[in-house]
């Protein structure tokens, strides 16, 4: 099942792209597992996710914790802590 992955702010800058469509392996079932898997895709990913604990995640546009199951989300976004307002 292809999933749309979005990157924002410095996560986007480090990875060098704003979004991509990826087929996730069957054994990637949580946000944390997805981050580990993405790190393996290249040094730019490894650097972006080096401080994985500061990166925030949204599944289908809802904030979730990194322990959350992917639960068939179609759109997954990674970004730094928000700084609006």
């Amino acid at each position: 099942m292809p999933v749309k992955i979005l990157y924002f702010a410095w996560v986007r800058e480090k990875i060098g792209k704003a979004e991509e469509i990826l087929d996730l392996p069957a054994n990637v079932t949580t946000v944390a597992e997805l981050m580990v898997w993405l790190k393996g895709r290249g040094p730019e990913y490894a650097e972006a996710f080096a401080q994985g604990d500061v990166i925030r995640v949204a599944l289908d546009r809802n904030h979730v914790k990194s322990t959350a199951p992917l639960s068939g989300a179609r759109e997954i976004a990674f970004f730094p802590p928000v700084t609006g307002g």
Partner: protein
Amino acid sequence: MTVRVEREDFDVGAEVARLTVGRSDIGAIVTFSGTVRGGSGADAITAMTLEHYPGMTEAELARVEAEAGKRWPLKASLIVHRIGTLKPGENIVLVVTASAHRQAAFAAAEFLMDYLKTRAPFWKKEMRADGQARWVAARECDREAAGRWEEISPPR
């Protein structure tokens, strides 16, 4: 109950007038405007760029606004957040709350700002006077400010 994300500037007076025109059930209107600070010395900035997550931003702001409407008896509310490149002194964000009495309007406006600061997917990048660009770091005090609402029961 309205949420807007846009490039254009807003006028506080016009937004208040639009929200309250023809109404005599409102007794108290609170507005909060956030503006770009220019900093000084080594921290001087020449501009700030605001990036956001289209779709999620609007959904998150609407959720925050709906939550405020559940906690306080609001007659009207508005959130406007600008995106794009802004200069020091320019407006970034506007929150307006209207209620019969001031306590609800003040509390709801503070709540909206605290939640917006920690939940709405916006990111600020500063263009500094020394030529460097830098992503603004999240402030711990904003997390604490939002956290306090989880313990307080609303003063209805």
